[in-house]
Every structure is written in structure tokens, then in C-alpha cells.
């Protein structure tokens, strides 16, 4: 197991930066999470053993029920890149297209795309030391290359804000530009609906789908937002666009909430986003209902993405599969169709 996973303890010698470059919040209270951390370490150790055994066997990483169960319980950090690549189909694409990534970068240039990406380079993970201009090596270059290659590979999407966080996070985990590129392609090209294209129709649709689900499952919350004329896009568009990066705890070595969500996202698809969103809202229903106005509602939706509920990622991940109740793909597909049709009719 990596050092990263074994050393969550209070920062020795005042260490405030995790091995992946994320600064721990000044006010991060190690003592308060001590119990969670030591319990989670035991979980991690147990999972690591099980995964080693699974990966040694030759049934390997086919998308079986066992693999699904294993993934829901968390992929060990040292296997994460490999597992994401395998279950998302990115590995296969990469093997079928050797040298493609490098060729894209050597090909024809697109100044407009380059400019759009450049605007956001210094605004990507500003609190991660490895993305700072002075860092050696500086990940801004890798980030720029991956985004550029992707924009050239998929000109219909090009570059959309939010993709920078996703690509940046992939680079930190895989430590490989090419793997990040193919994982980004798996997400944008196959796993997610059209979130990032110029019309953002998939994003708008999924925001409405979430609204519908909340109307059925948590009608009081829906009534509150509807009553104040709050459009769901105001409170949740960042959740979809950033896939919870920069929203839930992103720190890699200890607070693995986002990583654990992505484990399931790569294996099970975009449905996971609804599970996470519904769990966050349901867990904090009473708190949200205290809101008395639009600013207050926005503020509450921000606050529910913080604190011990989301930090304790192992329990959180168990909750996303029980808390929101049943959520079949058939339901999602049906809602997506009707919401999409309604949006198209509005135009």
C-alpha cells in the first residue's frame, strides 16, 4: 500500500499539503475526524488485500457483480487508474489507437481553443501546489495538453469550463497525460450525456431530471425552491459540470469522497450523480427547509456539501445506495426523454 494511504495522521512537522499537492484546509480538525480516519484506514487495508487477490485472478476486471460490489466499496489508490481505465473502456480505446494522443498535439493548431483553455489554466485547482506556475514540474502544461488534445479530438465539444477540473483531477490520479485523455473521452464521449457541448442540452436535461426526482422523493424541498422561483441550475449546475470536484472533499490521500464517487461513475455511469445529489439533499432536508429566501437557499445548498457527512466517505458511499431509495435506469431514461422534449419545445 502506498504511503499516501497509510499516513492520514495529524500532519507531522506541520505538513499542510498532501502528497498530491492539495493543501489541507487551515481549519481541518484532525482530532474530530480521528475516529473516522482510523476506522477508514482499517477499511482501506482490508480492501487493498481483497483487491490484490481479485486482480491476481485471471477473471480480472470484467464487469461482473463481484467487481461492481468491490468498486462500490472503494478501489485502492494504487489500482485506481488501472480499474478506471478497464471498466470505462478507455484502456481498450487507448490500445486500439496507439500514438493518437501525441499525433493530436502535433497536428493543426486551433488558436481560439488554445485561448479559451489558457484563460482557465491558472484558475484550475488554485489551492493545489502542483498546479501553480512556479511548481516543478508544473501540471498546468499537462492540463493544457490534455484539454487541447481533447478539443481537437472532439471539435463538437471543444473546451467547456469544468472540463479543466475533471482533466486536472485525472492527471493527478493517473500521472499520465495519455491515460487522462482517454478517461476524459470515456466520460464526455460515453458516460455522461451532452453536458459540455455548446447547447449544454444534456446538462439542462439532467438538472430538470433531478428536479423531477426531488419533486417525487422530497416534495417539501421542491416546493421551497419552486415557491421562491429558484431554478435548479442555480444550486446544482456545478455538481453536474464538475462531477463534484471542487465541491465535495477532493483531497486524495485522506478525504476520498470524490474519488469514491468517480469509482462508481466510471463503472456504473451517470446515474450515480443523481444518487449523490439526492443523498445530499435528503440528508439535509430539514436544514434546507429552514431557508427563508433565495440567498439563503443558495447558501444552504453550498453548506450541505461540507462537513462530516461528506468527509466520512465510506458511510457516505453506503448511504448513496440506500438513502435515495430505488432509482432505476428505466426511470432516469424516461425522465430524460420527457425533460429533454420539454426543453426543446421551450426554445
Amino acid at each position, binding site marked *: 500500500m502506498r504511503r499516501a494511504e497509510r499516513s492520514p495522521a495529524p500532519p507531522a512537522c506541520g505538513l499542510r499539503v498532501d502528497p498530491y499537492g492539495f493543501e489541507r484546509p487551515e481549519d481541518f480538525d484532525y482530532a474530530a475526524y480521528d475516529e473516522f480516519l482510523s476506522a477508514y484506514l482499517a477499511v482501506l487495508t482490508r480492501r487493498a488485500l481483497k483487491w490484490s487477490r481479485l486482480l491476481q485472478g485471471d477473471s480480472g476486471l470484467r464487469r461482473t457483480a463481484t467487481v461492481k460490489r468491490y468498486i462500490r466499496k472503494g478501489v485502492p489508490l494504487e489500482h485506481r487508474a488501472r480499474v478506471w481505465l478497464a471498466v470505462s473502456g478507455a484502456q481498450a480505446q487507448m490500445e486500439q489507437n496507439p500514438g493518437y494522443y501525441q499525433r493530436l498535439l502535433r497536428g493543426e493548431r486551433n488558436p481560439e481553443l488554445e485561448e479559451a483553455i489558457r484563460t482557465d489554466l491558472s484558475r484550475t485547482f488554485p489551492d493545489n501546489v502542483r498546479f501553480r506556475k512556479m511548481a516543478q514540474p508544473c501540471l498546468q502544461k499537462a492540463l493544457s495538453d490534455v484539454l487541447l488534445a481533447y478539443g481537437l479530438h472532439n471539435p463538437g465539444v471543444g473546451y467547456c469550463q469544468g472540463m479543466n477540473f475533471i482533466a486536472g483531477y485525472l492527471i493527478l490520479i493517473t500521472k499520465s497525460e495519455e491515460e487522462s485523455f482517454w478517461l476524459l473521452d470515456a466520460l464526455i464521449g460515453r458516460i455522461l450525456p451532452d453536458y459540455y457541448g455548446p447547447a449544454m442540452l444534456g446538462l439542462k436535461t439532467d438538472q430538470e431530471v433531478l428536479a423531477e426526482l426531488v419533486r417525487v422523493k422530497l416534495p417539501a424541498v421542491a416546493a421551497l425552491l419552486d415557491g421562491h422561483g429558484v431554478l435548479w441550475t442555480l444550486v446544482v449546475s456545478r455538481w453536474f459540470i464538475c462531477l463534484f470536484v471542487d465541491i465535495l472533499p477532493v483531497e486524495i490521500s485522506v478525504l476520498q469522497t470524490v474519488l469514491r464517487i468517480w469509482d462508481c461513475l466510471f463503472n456504473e455511469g451517470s446515474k450515480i450523480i443523481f444518487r449523490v445529489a439526492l443523498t445530499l439533499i435528503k440528508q439535509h432536508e430539514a436544514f434546507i427547509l429552514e431557508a*427563508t429566501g433565495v440567498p439563503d437557499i443558495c447558501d444552504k445548498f453550498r453548506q450541505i456539501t461540507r462537513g462530516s457527512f461528506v468527509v466520512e466517505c465510506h458511510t457516505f458511499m453506503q448511504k448513496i445506495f440506500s438513502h435515495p431509495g430505488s432509482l432505476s435506469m428505466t426511470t432516469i431514461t424516461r425522465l430524460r426523454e420527457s425533460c429533454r422534449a420539454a426543453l426543446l419545445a421551450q426554445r
Partner: protein
Amino acid sequence: MAETYDFLFKFLVIGSAGTGKSCLLHQFIENKFKQDSNHTIGVEFGSRVVNVGGKTVKLQIWDTAGQERFRSVTRSYYRGAAGALLVYDITSRETYNSLAAWLTDARTLASPNIVVILCGNKKDLDPEREVTFLEASRFAQENELMFLETSALTGENVEEAFLKCARTILNKIDSGELDPERMGSGIQYGDASLRQLRQPRSAQAVAPQPCGC
């Protein structure tokens, strides 16, 4: 509520990506330059109570994502805005060239009467300037906009921009040009003015609004 104010104005900050909209808002609200800011996804907002011409006004300011494709997502938030800061970057002609499109959006989606102040931001980067003060003031004049060059970095003219916009709206209320009670005016009476209103005409007191928009 602890806060009392005479009016609440809904403001927008619009303009192309990277012009410094979020930094302007941050400077105005927190009085500091946000060195390492993330870019805005969708819509965010902040608020501050200011004193203008003897009135207390709460500004509720909506900061929008600048990337073109987000416009279709953020548009719904334009509705009923009373004022707007229209921002370009003096070191980028491209951001200046898209001003007309942003202005059209504001006037058609918010209100034709929206009070707009043009802000040429990053004034501190004068050596890299691509847009002269003169041509921007001409653009402002032609389009009936107020105009200032600002710097979210040094804070120069940031406060002025918001206050100038608020002052103009107040003047228009005084002169009767703007009617706060018209639907979608982007203006609401605050608690303080409600109390004053209630005394002379208690029977038709304006329903106390939650501090929403």
C-alpha cells in the same frame, strides 16, 4: 432580520470569460483581491448593503459564467435585474468586441430599462492595453451606458462602479422614471421603507417580501 435597508436592487455582472467579473465582485464585497480564484460555473452571487444619497440599499449581485455556452444556462437569471456591470478587459480586444452581444442580452432578457455601467477592467495593466479609454467612452456614449475603467486588483473605481449604478437607479426612482412596484423592476422595498410606507397608508401596506428576488 438584523439588516434594514430602504431598497433592494438586483444587479448582474456580465461580460466575457476572464475579464475579472468575479474578482470585481469579491473586491466590492470583501475589499480584497482574490488572487487564486476558481472560475465561475453557472451563477453565483453576493450581497452588500451600501449607503447612497442618504438611503440604505442592499445590492444583490449575480455573477455569471462568462463562457459563451453557459449563456443559455445563466440567462434565466437576467430576469428582473435593475442594474448591471458590463465588464471587458482593457488588455483584450476580443472581450471588448463582444460587448454589444452582452448588452443585447441584458436589455432583452433583464429589462430594456436596465441601468448599465461599462467597466474596462484591469486598468492596472496599462502597458498591455489593447482598448483605449477614448474608444470605449465613445461606445458607452452611443449605447447610453455609464463608463469607468476599474481594477479589481488595486480596487480602483470598483466601489464607484457599483455605487454609481445604484445612484442612477435611485435617481430614476425619485424622478418617477423607474417604478419599483412594477413587476420585474429588480427593485424591492426593504424593511426600513416598508415601515415608513405603512404608517401613512397602513391599509394598503406592501406585503413584506422575503429577501429573495
